[in-house]
């Protein structure tokens, strides 16, 4: 797992709220750093991936949090 500069807790938040949070907060990490979204909505995985593509950031991958909640990591590219 890449060390994330910022972890967003989006448990219990329905899509598209996790990617709205991601869009709002990505500027808080430096370019090249990793931001991690932890979200249990089943649409969060495909949506974080698609958001990264549309916003030209790098989707790194998925790995669960300690409590089993799915987590998604994105590298800020611009």
């Amino acid at each position, binding site marked *: 797992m890449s060390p994330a500069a910022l972890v967003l807790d989006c448990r219990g938040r329905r*899509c*598209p709220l996790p*990617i*709205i949070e991601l869009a709002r907060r990505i500027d808080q990490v430096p370019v090249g750093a990793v931001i991690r979204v932890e979200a249990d909505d*089943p*649409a969060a995985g*495909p949506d974080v991936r698609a*958001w990264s593509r*549309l916003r030209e950031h790098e989707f790194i991958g998925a790995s669960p949090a300690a409590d089993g909640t799915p987590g998604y990591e994105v590298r800020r590219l611009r």
Partner: protein
Amino acid sequence: MAYRRGVDGSVETVSDETVYLDAASGVPLHPVAREAIMAAQADGWADPGRLYAVGRRAAILLASAREAVADVLDARPDEISFTSSGLTALHAAVLGTMRGNRRRGSRFVHSAVEHSAVLHAAEWHVAAGGEAEAVPVDHLARVDVDTFVARARAASVAAAALQAANHEVGTAQPVSAVADRLGDVPLIVDATQTLGHTPAPCGWSVLAADARQWGGPAGVGVLAVRTGTRWVSPAPADDHGRVPGPPDIPAVVGAAAALRAVVREQSATASRLSALIDRIRARVPAGIPDVEVLGDPVDRLPHMVTFSFLYVDGESLLLELDRRGFAVSSGSSCTSSSLEPSHVLVAMGALTSGNVRVSLSRDTTVEQVERFLDALPDAVANVRAQLDAPS
């Protein structure tokens, strides 16, 4: 136009008439079908298996409906059966072909973006001890011919299924190219979205279609099995042929009459609707920021387009549009009973939230499309404002 007073005392206009832009979920009964059904209810109510005069009349009506559908599919009348819906036709197509080809093996290959009826039939087959494999698609939702053929011709594959065009994003699949290279592997083609809109696909061994898509009644599906294709009913045996029980003959007669009528105007309707879709595909991204238009822009169903809006939830957008008098559908998870996002959007790597599918019918007018295009930016902006979306 009607007026409605809001809670704050403001007055807003509401549309009296809903503009129906969800033809892919079903269209109203074609006028020709309505007449044919009325006539057949008087003449075709009896059991077509009986030898007395009213039974023979029912049998003649059924035979002529079968001939009409066979003619459109370039098939023989005895290859055509009628089911109670497009969905049951898909189930019977998959399960019957797998059952009939057990000697080949128990593996079922299908595209990752087939209709959920095909995926559910695949799950049923797996639960009964079989195997199933989904072939991935590209970002347009299309299978690669080489990959699909390689998977379908692998050892122990009993049958393969490929839709004529995708039901959520409209992308046409390379059915003929796949069929040409499948050898003796039976190909099941889901034509539920295309029959009545585009020329019938070639190369199928088994085909399913849905009268609801072309202005027939909701309770008629078509199951077509090519002569020489092994197919064994997944249901208990019945005297009537592939599908248990005699069909609803007046409904079948109506479905066939509507199909004949729409096929006659098919190419004119397709070019008119396709131009309207081109217009929607161009205008939506020009007027609304952060939207992705999905599916193949050219090689597609003539009457369908799908987009995903960033920072929008599909349910709120559907309700915003409904309030403005437009009926559309969505593959977003918040609009499905399962809360799962659409498997089609996931397979093509598209954004699943804020998804809207627009599908036009022969009754859709230019003016209706223009009104929709005028209303959409404000509807999207409203949902984004409610969600406090980043700009």
